[in-house]
């Protein structure tokens, strides 16, 4: 065991950590933005809206993230139309391919979580908002979606942690994230155990931070459910 190499390369790991954070945050934010309309489509009564959303969710939840990433990173070069279009600026770079793959993937999972939460809306809430004369848009914006976000929170916390873990796949396609940094350290000094354990330790710390953060948010959002202290 030789950890001096690890300490010498700590800046590399920290840079990797920064890239990992970028990947996860950008993917989560854009994935969430995509998931909200998708989940609304998935609960819609119109089958032209519902089936495409269901198919999207089925595809992205049914196939491995690694395959989805390869489809974008290696697969897109197969089409001349894409290679000659503006999109090639994105698909040429491993970084953007990974982000797009992660965002599409987490959108699928998040949409499914939100769909479940929307369907669990107590019917009394819908009735009450109708009785108040709300239009459908206002009802979704003010009653159904806020309540669903709250119901979806525990499951979404898990999804965020899965996204953090999934982001390690970016290291496979040449990106120097935490896992990529470990790969570089290993190939330079041949210290496989120490280098990967260090990356694992960083991921573990991030996971604990996320768990702690979601506990805090849950405490904040579930105030009305807390047992009364008298």
């Amino acid at each position, binding site marked *: 065991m030789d950890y001096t190499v690890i300490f010498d390369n700590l800046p590399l790991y920290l840079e990797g950590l920064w890239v990992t954070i970028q990947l996860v945050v950008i993917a989560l934010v854009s994935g969430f933005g995509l998931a909200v309309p998708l989940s609304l489509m998935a609960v819609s009564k119109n089958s032209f809206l519902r089936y495409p959303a269901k198919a999207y969710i*089925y*595809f992205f939840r*049914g*196939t*491995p*993230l*690694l*395959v*989805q990433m*390869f*489809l974008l990173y*290696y*697969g*897109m*070069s*197969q*089409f001349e139309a894409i290679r000659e279009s503006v999109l090639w600026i994105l698909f040429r770079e491993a970084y953007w391919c990974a982000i797009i793959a992660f965002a599409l993937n987490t959108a699928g999972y998040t949409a499914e979580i939100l769909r479940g939460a929307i369907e669990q809306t107590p019917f009394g809430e819908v009735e009450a908002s109708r009785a108040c004369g709300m239009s459908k848009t206002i009802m979704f914006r003010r009653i159904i979606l806020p309540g669903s976000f709250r119901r979806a929170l525990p499951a979404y916390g898990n999804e965020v942690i899965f996204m*953090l*873990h*999934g*982001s*390690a*796949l970016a*290291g*496979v396609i040449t990106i120097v994230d935490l*896992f990529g940094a*470990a790969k570089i350290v*290993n190939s330079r000094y041949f210290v*496989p*155990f120490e280098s*990967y*354990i260090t*990356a*694992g330790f960083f*991921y*573990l710390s991030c*996971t*604990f931070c996320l768990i702690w953060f979601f506990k805090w948010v849950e405490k904040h959002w579930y105030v009305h459910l807390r047992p009364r202290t008298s």
Partner: protein
Amino acid sequence: MAFPSPSRNSGMFDLHGYFPMILEGMVLTVEVALISLLIAVILGFFGAIAKLSKSRIARSTATVYTTLIRGIPDLVLMTIIFYGGQIQVNNIGDSLGWDYIDISPFVAGTLTIGFIFGAYMTETFRGGILAVSSSEIEAALAFGMPSWKVFLRITLPLMVRHALPGFGNNWMVLAKTTALVSVIGLHDMLYNAGVAGGATRQPFTFFLVVALMYLCITGISDLGLRWANRRYSVGVRKV
């Protein structure tokens, strides 16, 4: 094996005779998935018993196991076990005077996936055991069954119903995680698709085929799990 040259005229869905190779990879993928599922179930079973036991050492060992495993990405764990485990085995082997022991990617892959999902199974089984109503156990004890018999005859069959949905979820995630073994050089379906895609310059086509294969695996599992769920919930009244 003959490598057919890519022809410009053929359409996007021409597989150039590489389909058998993908199928071979699929067989390996299913093998990895099933063997690691077996390891995961065994580990999960003992993990759940340890978590619910009275011994503090057993409980804290199981907690450390599930927390560590669920906190580190599967890919990182796999490389730790595959690359790092190899060196550790060599070090131990050197000091004991063994011959060189080679950890194959297959062993490392299945062990890691089994080890990871053992942690998830532990939580699922623990929840299932806790969900068995205590009056059933009391009744069994009143009949004079020793505690191991209560566990085997009452708790175990009854916990299946509660653990089944979680088990199904774990299996689905496990099946998709098998794609990672291609990273440590196992010639599974994804690896073979990469080779075929490179040779024919049709990577999208071949990765899409792999994606569809995975959809088949998850789709068939979904049907099977639904059937099992119905079968184990026969005694439950539907509302």
